[in-house]
């Protein structure tokens, strides 16, 4: 009888244990598109899941997809903060001013903004040195092209994209002095139809290796059909072009997200910081290399990746001139961070103009 009473006494405890449970921390993510895009947003969501995995029940993550870069972003972040989010990762450049506005209203909430340049006491930024990956795939592209024409589908003429083109060109030129770059700007990050059209145009102009700085896998599909090569963007895209896919630059946000959430939990998180990490920290990962790439080229490419990671190499090492022939980097000099972050010029050898 006594035992029965004990048992009954325990029941409410069990129920309470379940109801009373709350996570120590709530972390919100906002995405510009759907996580199913196999590109930019997909990788941020992989990063979010890494946070889930690392902290289990201690951290609750929530996310909102398809948030436009407008007043809507401000509303979504405000509502997240009102719902009790302690930390918000805003994963697209255009959220910059909305992040700062919301951060002002919620000084206790910690904000992390991807690829922006404005910070505050409770706003830090983070971005990846994708250009380091471009050096590796630029080398592969230079070695793999037979027509010596490399096509490049670019999104917007912002420093990040210009930096990628320059880095890829310098590496390709070093691997193959006869190489030529053709760049098409399509003024969107995600539009499979436009991306495919641009790739088809480049292929019809003789390009047999296509690089991309746009998010969808459409270019890989076109490359597969046309029998040319391409690279995965943000994620491994080999399932969309098993023969075309050479390798990929994979965005690895997981380690950074886990690190920052941990800092937020133990009180060491700081605002006003600007992280700009690359291959070394795992924010930029070189994907698996295709069997189509000869072994020696694979080795050279990995040596570049290792050299950049160890600091013995730099994507922008002089002598390098600007497109107009004026000197930029002296022999042995490497680019400073300020020039890289604001890069708005082509290096010598690239034809065409950056749209203004």
């Amino acid at each position, binding site marked *: 009888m006594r035992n029965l009473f004990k048992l009954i006494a325990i029941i409410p405890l069990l129920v309470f244990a379940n109801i009373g449970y709350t996570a120590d921390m709530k972390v919100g993510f906002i995405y510009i598109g759907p996580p199913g895009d196999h590109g930019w947003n997909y990788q941020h969501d992989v990063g979010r899941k890494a946070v889930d995995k690392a902290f289990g029940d201690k951290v609750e993550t929530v996310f909102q997809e398809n948030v436009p870069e407008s007043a809507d972003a401000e509303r979504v972040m*405000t509502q997240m903060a009102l719902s009790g989010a302690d930390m918000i990762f805003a994963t697209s450049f255009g959220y910059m001013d909305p992040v700062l506005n919301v951060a002002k209203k919620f000084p206790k909430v910690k904000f992390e903004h991807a690829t922006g340049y404005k910070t505050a006491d409770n706003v830090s930024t983070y971005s990846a040195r994708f250009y380091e990956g471009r050096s590796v795939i630029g080398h592969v592209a230079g070695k793999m092209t037979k027509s010596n024409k490399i096509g490049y589908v670019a999104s917007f003429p*912002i420093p990040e994209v210009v930096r990628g083109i320059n880095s890829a060109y310098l590496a390709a030129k070093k691997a193959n002095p006869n190489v030529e770059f053709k760049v098409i700007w399509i003024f969107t990050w995600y539009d499979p139809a436009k991306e495919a059209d641009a790739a088809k145009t480049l292929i019809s102009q003789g390009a047999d290796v296509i690089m991309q700085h746009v998010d969808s896998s459409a270019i890989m599909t076109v490359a597969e059909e046309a029998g040319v090569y391409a690279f995965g963007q943000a994620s491994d895209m080999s399932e969309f072009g098993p023969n075309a896919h050479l390798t990929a630059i994979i965005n690895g946000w997981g380690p950074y997200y886990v690190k920052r959430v941990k800092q937020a939990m133990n009180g060491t998180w700081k605002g006003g910081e600007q992280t700009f990490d690359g291959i070394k920290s795992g924010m930029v990962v070189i994907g698996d290399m295709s069997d189509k790439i000869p072994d020696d080229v694979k080795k050279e490419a990995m040596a570049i990746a290792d050299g950049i990671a160890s600091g013995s190499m730099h994507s922008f090492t002089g002598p390098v001139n600007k497109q107009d022939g004026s000197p930029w980097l002296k022999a042995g000099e490497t680019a400073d961070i300020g020039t890289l972050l604001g890069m708005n010029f082509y290096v010598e050898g690239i034809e065409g103009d950056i749209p203004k």
Partner: protein
Amino acid sequence: MFKLEPRVEFSPMISFLGPLFSIVLTMIFGGILFFSLGVDPVAAIKMIFWDPLMSETFAEYSRPQILIKAAPLILIALGLSLGFKANIWNIGAEGQYIMGAIFGATFALSLYPSESVFIFPVMIIAGIIGGGIWAMIPAMLKVKFKVNEILVSLMLVYVAEQILALASLGFLRNPDGAGFPGSRNLNDYPSASNLELINGTGIHLGVLISLLMVIFFYILLFRHSLGFKIKLIGHSPKAYAFSGDSPNKMVVICLLVSGGLAGVAGLFEVAGPAGQITIDFNVGYGFTAIIVAFLGRLNPIGIFLAGIIMALTYVGGELTQFMLNLPAAAIQVFQGMLLFFLLSFDLFVNYKLKFLKD
């Protein structure tokens, strides 16, 4: 079986019950959808319709937000409703919205950083002119060459988007913006900022004007001869011809009004909630406003209510996404259901269902 018979008498009962039924049906079918996605349907529907208005956590913030989200929809839809009544189809309000914002922002930023109380009023006029000019192109082509205004106004949206990209990357690009696209933030430029009218709510002049415009359009349509003429030309162009007025005049008036209102909606948005010209400045208000206009049955009061309901489903829909993990697509389907049921019940406002014996 059955057939549809036109109603001879207008039934106020049906026109009141129609929207009510359609909302109930949306809740039922939406609930089934949410349930099949593994989400508590009652919680989700409460979160869409109730929490933005009444919950302790969100309501204080989201009540004014609903008005802010509804304001451009209402402004644009009011302008469009004039033309739609007169069978003049401006589908390109999105482009006029963009051009209004660009005109206003360009004027303001060309004076940056000088301060004057006249800057914001002139920006409003520039916004009206920007949208008006963009709508005048299809108007003139229709009047002079009988070119279809639906196609021209729609195509000009894409032209406006290109000009928007040009502005963000070129002539309006923030010189202190480290080379990134996008203009200076007008909220950091006091003379050009569309300021909050009530502190902490975000309510701006555009919200107030959209509400005033509802009253103005009500008077215009039901108490003014222009409203009568617009309805007349829509119902019977031949009868209108007897009035001696040229139908071309109506084309110009309707497109000018709808373009001007779309332009000023864009101006209030760029100087207020959005703050800056960016490549993705437009988020589809000009197209959604077409739905709002028809949902509100081209009636100013109806448009006001439709705008509020649309805004509510946006704001509430967002809550369900990150609170309950509903995918964005499920919310879009839910909104689509609401529109579908509302418009299909409209059928019964104008028609009677009659069962026939074999």
